[in-house]
């Protein structure tokens, strides 16, 4: 029996504002517990929320970047429930009238094709605090530093059909919010959190299966695993004649499994109603226009430009535009090397640089080789000072902190030999040293050509221009 999965994702993105969504308290991560919460965050009697303009701007930026509808007004609602890390007894969120609705995010599939994922809505809401259950000897500790931190919750339509697509969607979204500079996207710190709604149905069935919601998946890899686990769990339940219970499940990364958290029977009635402390948020055309002007070049726009202007392959352009920092690195480098060397630069970044970074577990922002250093090396390749092979040595030396490409070339005497007479002399010497091989070659054993090239390169410590070596050898043989 063939099955197909239907997946919808809810992503909570923490907005990188200086202060909270409804108070002036700071939002920095990692401070001493309860030092970044003011009386408003603590839900003291008589305090009132005042909306953070910057959070609205950031939500609008997101909405505009996915071509979404921005309704002329949106409404803040209260989601009522009791929990110790929810100081007011309600979370201020948006219900029926979110700030962003009906957008589309195109993701790139493994086969290079693009697939549109519809985004139902994105709404502004405040985060809750944290309950700490360890180290309190049977009691719980409450840290309200995070209480009131601005989030946008981005809800997709169930357009995703595999864990790979889910990951592609999340990576695209992650890249986008970083491009827009509306979030640091730090997954370890919880700035980018994902809940996955998953259901399965038999192929050909039109009705959707019962779904479960898996919470607490905080890395791309865990999302992939959690969804895979959930799909196979649901299929095996159904194949053995069971039924899927609509419930919230928690992903346990240590055991790689999902477990029920609470079922619908126990589901809370959140009693949403419009928050009477806040007026409807009215977005006028002027405001939208202002935000539109602050939009940076978006990842897919950059990708297109890399292909059309710089003649990169679709694949390379996609890799280089996938992260804002990486794209910046590339663009910084080609500022020096010029457009004609764009392809060569792209190859070096995607091949050697990313490989080395990956091996050393570094991200591009912490690359030991700066874009200018890399550009300096590319320039020496382009003007034939060094060969591509020698460049590997230069790259390695720069990685070890030995300065610019020119420094390395000078210090190690790596300048390519392009002088014809010098190369001819080297070739002559080799031909004299290997009379047997020369005789065999001349007798028709043409496969020995590579042997002579190798010997010449070896004699010149790799510095001879390989193309010239080839030409001279052909003549002399």
């Amino acid at each position, binding site marked *: 029996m063939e099955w197909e999965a239907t997946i919808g994702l809810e992503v909570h993105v923490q907005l990188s504002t200086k202060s909270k969504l409804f108070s002036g308290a700071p939002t920095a991560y990692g401070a001493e517990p309860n030092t970044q919460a003011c*009386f408003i965050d*603590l*839900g*003291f*009697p*008589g*305090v*009132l*929320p*005042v*909306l953070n303009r910057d959070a609205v701007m950031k939500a609008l930026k997101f909405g505009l970047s996915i071509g979404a509808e921005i309704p002329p007004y949106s409404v803040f609602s*209260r989601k*009522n429930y*009791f929990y*110790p890390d929810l*100081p*007011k*007894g*309600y979370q201020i969120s948006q219900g029926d009238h979110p700030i962003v609705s009906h957008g589309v995010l195109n993701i790139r599939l493994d086969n290079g094709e693009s697939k549109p994922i519809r985004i139902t809505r994105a709404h502004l809401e405040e985060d809750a605090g944290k309950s700490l259950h360890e180290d309190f000897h049977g009691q*719980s500790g*409450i840290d309200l530093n995070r209480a009131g931190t601005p989030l946008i919750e981005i809800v997709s339509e169930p357009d995703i059909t595999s864990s790979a697509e889910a990951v592609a969607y999340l990576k695209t979204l992650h890249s986008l919010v970083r491009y827009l500079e509306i979030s640091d996207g730090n997954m370890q710190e919880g700035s980018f959190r994902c809940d996955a709604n998953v259901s399965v149905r038999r192929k050909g069935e039109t009705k959707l299966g019962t779904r479960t919601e898996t919470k607490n998946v905080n890395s791309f890899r865990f999302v992939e695993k959690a969804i895979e686990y959930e799909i196979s769990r649901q299929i095996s339940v159904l194949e053995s004649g069971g039924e899927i219970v609509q419930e919230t499940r928690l992903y346990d990364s240590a055991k790689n499994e999902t477990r029920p958290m609470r079922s619908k029977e126990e589901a809370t*009635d959140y*009693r*949403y*109603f419009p928050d*009477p*402390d*806040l*007026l409807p948020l009215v977005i006028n055309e002027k405001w939208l226009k202002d935000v539109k002007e602050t939009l940076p070049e978006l990842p897919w726009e950059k990708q297109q430009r890399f292909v059309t202007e710089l003649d990169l392959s679709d694949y390379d352009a996609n890799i280089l535009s996938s992260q804002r920092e990486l794209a910046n690195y590339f663009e910084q480098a080609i500022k020096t090397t010029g457009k004609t060397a764009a392809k060569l630069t792209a190859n070096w970044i995607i091949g050697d640089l990313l490989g080395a970074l990956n091996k050393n577990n570094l991200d591009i922002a912490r690359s030991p080789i700066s874009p200018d250093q890399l550009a300096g090396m590319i320039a020496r390749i382009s003007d034939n000072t060094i060969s591509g092979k020698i460049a590997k040595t230069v790259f390695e030396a720069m990685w070890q902190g030995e300065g610019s490409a020119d420094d390395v070339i000078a210090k190690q005497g790596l300048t390519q030999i392009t002088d014809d007479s010098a190369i001819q002399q080297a070739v002559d010497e080799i031909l004299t040293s290997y009379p047997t091989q020369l005789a065999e070659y001349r007798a028709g054993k043409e496969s020995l050509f590579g042997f002579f090239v190798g010997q010449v390169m070896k004699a010149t410590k790799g510095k001879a221009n390989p193309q010239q070596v080839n030409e001279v050898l052909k003549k002399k043989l």
Partner: protein
Amino acid sequence: MSHKTIAELSADLAQKKCSSVELTRYYLQRIKTLDPLLNSFITVTEEKALAQAAAADERRAKGENMPLLGIPIAHKDIFCTEGIKTTSGSKMLDNFIAPYDATVVTKYKEAGVVCLGKLNMDEFAMGSSNETSYYGAVKNPWDLTRVPGGSSGGSSAAMAARLAPATTGTDTGGSIRQPAALCGVTGLKPTYGRVSRFGMIAFASSLDQAGMLAATAEDCAILLNPIAGHDPKDSTSLDQPVPDYTATLNNSIGGMTIGLPKEYFTGEGMDAGVTKAVEAAIAQFKKLGAVFKEISLPTTDLCVPTYYVVAPAECSSNLSRFDGVRYGYRCEDPKNLLDLYERSRSEGFGEEVKRRIIIGTYVLSAGYYDAFYLKAQKIRRLISNDFEAAFKEVDLVLAPTTPSTAFKLGEKSADPLSMYLSDIFTISANLAGLPAISIPAGFAEGLPVGVQLLAPHFQEAKLLNAAHQFQQVTDFHQKIAPLNVE
């Protein structure tokens, strides 16, 4: 001194006939002597008051001369006051010392006002008799066996007995005007959004409005001046120009049109004495040149049921923060989280508060939301529309403030419905967000009767003008409860 208005006391201070310290001592003494009969104060801040008075005197000595500089008043205990216990009349907050001032308190401090203490009130402003207070019922100075009205019952009783020359109050469904009427003082509820709600412990956010109780409309105008206006800490306070409310008090009201909504004058459930006093007041306004016109507010009978959906809904959410976790009452020895919540809230809240939380939770619940809350919001819009239409024809609307004079303590406390109906004439102003004032209009069997004027949004000046003109030709507002200490 006790018969003097703020306008007069302000003049005395300016002319150095008395000092703020003397004035403050005088009222503190009155509180000490008379409040044991009334129970209108929860907290008296004698030391702080005298220090503020001394500071005010110093400022006057340096030549400052703002009208309220050195005038003592008392705040309803719903306003947060930094460093002073702020209870909202509840056991839940019996141990709560506010770490900040409400904007109203801040503005009065800036104006040089001296705070005598914090006034008793119905618990979380839920009640019309001041009998739901954790701190005990307040007595009506005109008859100690009767209620002072509520929820600003401490404010009205203290004002009627002149334990302060003015008091602050809040009005969610009549909580300033009804007690003002029952105690024979003047009470102003400004337009919703005219005065900041920041630091005012919320009952029903879309209805709550801060105001004041005073001897005269003129005093209300003086008291409204410093607190009116936009507050960046309250998103629902509106950025509208603030006039000098004292500037237009003496305008003639000749030709002013006053509407009499026929639905408020059916006589049903009305005390004859109240009807008579209201009729006399109408006659008085006519003498001043006002023109009366019958109008219709067809949604009048929907006001009470609408209010008792909207207000409890908001309160059920607003009061969720009182959970025993961060401040306020926490039950002894909680077994687990649920036990902590259940007992802290069961033990910390009184019956009326719990009743409204339950009603509010119900009307917001899935499956009931549309039938109750959403419908109530739609009706609220209709009520507003009714007034909007009426104000196209008339400048002000006049109505009785309450259907009866002060009732006996205990008379209605067992019957919430009849208690709710005592606010029948005042609730509409809150639902429509309109400014309204209750002014003394006479007596029925020795008990004060109030009459109410309502105006379009932000037309407090017009209200105060009409009320002031009325008080120029009547003396009901000058009568002080004959309280005697044996």
